[in-house]
């Protein structure tokens, strides 16, 4: 098991290196740090532009720049220098990640609970009215565009706030501009801001997972060991949860881990609608301000995150299902 984990981890490294090279080429060709300086009025002199080029390292050949970036990352743990003033890439990215993780973790938790409850009930009551109704609702959520649904919920929340004259839903930012003093009030403030974005994203995510859970639960319910468990005279609930659900959860864990890249995309959009200062804003402003090293850092962090999640999916699969032998 340990050997396998280490080997998988080592296998991920070439993918990661290859992907950093690909993204370096993409960033180098599409994000030019000179853009804001080329349109300055009055125009900068040729000598000034040249000194800027040297400062941004654009005079060096591409491979050399990649090598510098890679060694800076590996040997010194730096993401390079931002073109934005007083902008420490590592610190800013760390803050943005913390904000986005609130959304992603909250979403995964809520969506998983929903998916398991819905998946198991519909599998147990297959082809009942309940099954058809929840399937229809699930398909509806599967068919909603993230952005449209987020805007819709936001507008509804504003209308509810206005009509009740309260300020129950926070529709802007990940926390209040002047957060209340003390740890608990701050936590409460953050939770209140989380409600809408997390509800948006988890409703959009649970549907696919609940279909998945339903299918794997159906497969387990029809299996021989379930019949044996029932024949042994175990109580129906014990059969369902200890023998059924435990096995039926295995495929879902893998699926959830594999869906993280898509979830991050959804998070970027949801954050933008609710004006969260997370990964989405970090990336969009880095692009708009033509800051290649920040863009690189962002892509690197998300790529590592996705690769690690895929690795966890593989390992979890083996841990949860002893039939899978990792050699």
């Amino acid at each position, binding site marked *: 098991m340990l050997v396998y984990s280490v080997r998988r981890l080592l296998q991920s490294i*070439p*993918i990661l290196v*290859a*992907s950093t090279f*690909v*993204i370096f080429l*993409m*960033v180098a*060709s*599409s*994000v030019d740090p000179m853009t804001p300086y080329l349109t300055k009025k009055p125009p900068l002199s040729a000598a000034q532009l040249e000194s800027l080029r040297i400062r941004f390292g654009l005079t060096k050949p591409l491979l050399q720049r990649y090598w510098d970036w890679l060694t800076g990352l590996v040997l010194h743990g730096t993401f390079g220098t931002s073109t934005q003033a007083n902008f420490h890439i590592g610190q800013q990215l760390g803050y943005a990640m913390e904000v986005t993780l609130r959304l992603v973790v909250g979403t995964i938790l809520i969506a998983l609970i929903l998916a398991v409850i819905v998946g198991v009930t519909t*599998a*147990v009551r*297959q*082809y009942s009215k309940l099954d058809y109704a929840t399937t*229809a609702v699930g*398909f*509806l959520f*599967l*068919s*909603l*565009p*993230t*952005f*449209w649904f987020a*805007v*819709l919920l936001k*507008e509804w929340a*504003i209308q509810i706030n206005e009509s009740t004259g309260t300020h129950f839903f926070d529709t802007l930012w990940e926390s209040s501009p002047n957060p209340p003093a003390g740890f608990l009030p701050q936590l409460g403030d953050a939770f209140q801001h989380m409600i809408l974005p997390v509800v948006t994203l988890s409703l959009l995510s649970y549907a696919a997972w609940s279909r998945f859970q339903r299918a794997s639960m*159906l497969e387990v*319910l*029809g299996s021989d060991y379930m019949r044996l468990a029932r024949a042994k005279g175990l109580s129906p609930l014990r059969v369902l949860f200890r023998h059924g659900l435990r096995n039926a959860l295995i495929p879902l864990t893998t699926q959830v881990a594999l869906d993280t*890249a*898509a979830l*991050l*995309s959804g998070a*970027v*959009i949801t954050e*933008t609608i609710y004006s969260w200062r997370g990964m989405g804003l970090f*990336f*969009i402003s880095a*692009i*708009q301000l033509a800051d290649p090293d920040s*863009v690189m850092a*962002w*892509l690197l962090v*998300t*790529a590592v995150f*996705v*690769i690690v999640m*895929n690795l966890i999916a593989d390992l979890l699969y083996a841990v949860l299902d002893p039939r899978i032998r990792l050699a």
Partner: protein
Amino acid sequence: MPSRVNTSAGDTLGTTAEQAARANREFTVRARSQRQIVARRFRQHKAAMASLVVFVLVVLFAFLGPLLWTTSPSFMSNDIFTAPSGSHPFGTDSNGIDLLSAVMKGTQSSLIIAVVVSVVATTVGAVYGAVSGFYGGWIDTVMMRIADLFLTFPIIAIAIMLDNRFQQEASSLWLLIGVLTALFWPGAARVIRAQVLSLKEKEFVEAARALGARDRRIIFRHLLPNTLGSIIVISTLTVAGTILTETALSFLGFGVQFPNTSLGLLVTTNQTAIEGGHPWLFYIPGVFIILIALTINFIGDGLRDAFDPQQTRVRA
């Protein structure tokens, strides 16, 4: 089921002629081709059939509608922000553009983009996956790692970046199709590879090889046709995925640009319409996106059930 042999006791009575006739009928069970079986099962899926009807109506609306409703989707009239009424069934927007014709045009381009992406992504993915699974070994490892590479980045980020790069160029439609294809082909490749891995061990592949078939013939004539069910299901679901992703990309400013339009662009331009007091501008294009995605998802579900011979309706 008409093909079942009737063995009830009453049938043993009767004349020899009748018996002969019955015996004759009992043995001429109607042969059904794979296609007929699939069509039959699909028709039994009520939600899928209903969705198919609605989807066809949406397609007719998008492609035949403009022949009946001839207002140009880029004509700016003086009626600004009129609510839905007789002269403008879907109302008008801030530029006085008739929303009905804009929605027709938008549905048209969204559908065309979705179908092109779906066909290209599924074809590329299926062939790639089949080759990878068929050869196995290090070829498989390398090919699938490359496919994984495409799944490592949130596609949204790549789109924002490419948009920044190609902002000024008119080729954004092809770029959009390229980005969406890049997003969807690895999924198809994975599924088809998994199927080919088990199919290639079957006897018919061995038989084909014994008859002297080359690798290419085995892949294209023996393996891929056997994965046709999955290919059709994937391509259907890709259409829904593409429509939704196109909306997300439009929101980020990537993709179809005015005067051309798409459903994603329409909801994006009208994202503040609810606050502004013109909710129809936001709701109507959104409902069309949902309608297409929803019907396609149901059709895909029906096709999956129809194609999957192992899916017996077990009552647990």
